[in-house]
């Protein structure tokens, strides 16, 4: 199978998340006319927090063998 097609299909949940988030941000920003900076900033900050937690977990939980496949 074409490698790009396989990559796209394998990451469907990621595309679906981006699709839903785009629709809802469009509703909030355009249809409801509520352009709050914090609406987009806070989830990004939370994602950064999650990334830090994950990095710590991976460091301490899989110190030698790496994550399970």
């Amino acid at each position, binding site marked *: 199978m074409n490698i790009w097609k396989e990559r796209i*299909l*394998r990451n*469907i*949940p*990621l*595309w*679906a*998340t981006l*699709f*839903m*988030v785009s*629709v*809802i*941000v469009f*509703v*909030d920003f355009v*249809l*409801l006319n*509520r352009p*709050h900076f*914090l*609406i987009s900033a*806070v*989830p990004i900050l*939370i*994602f950064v*927090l*999650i*990334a830090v*937690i*994950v990095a710590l*977990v*991976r460091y301490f*939980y899989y110190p030698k063998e*790496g*994550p*399970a*496949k």
Partner: protein
Amino acid sequence: MMGLWLSIPAYIAIVFLIIHHYRYRGGSWPTLGFFGSAIAYGIIRENLLAIFNPAYNLYGFVGIDLWVGFAPLVVPVGWTFTAYTSWYLASQITGIDKPLRSRMPIVATLAGLISATISFIIEMPAVAAGWWSWNFDPAVVPFFMGASEGLPLLTLGGWAMTVGIFLFCYWCIAYHKTRWRYVGIVGIILHFIQLIVVNAILTV
């Protein structure tokens, strides 16, 4: 017709997630098992809350939507969408696609945190768009962006806990043949009881 801006994208997205699960996570029966149990869990949860707490009358969809008892179908579908995408993102981050035993709490907690961030975006316009409203007492539950059209911060924890507990219990039941199965069943029952009690306490 603002309700259509939530329901139609949610139904489209869930179809693609079903295709993904069917293709990469084990065919027909596991796919039916996950999506069937998640949507059934959401329907039972919403109906239990509405039956045991008459003040829990949150949904005001305008547009085309299907109702199952007190639950609009888009709510369990949207919630299932969040649970599956959170599971996918958590498995991508940790490298654990099929969590077993001691790895379940870690992936479930991470999936819960991710679902809180997704829910933040969904919840922000929900009240202003008329999708649903919240009856929490502003003196007890802090609101983000005001009590009239903002979101109660408690709901982020609610989404995180619901997704984390559901995924943990689902993995216990679906992936294990030992006593973990009983842990999953008891966990779901305790979660329903806890939801009813907490919601009754916090609702105006």
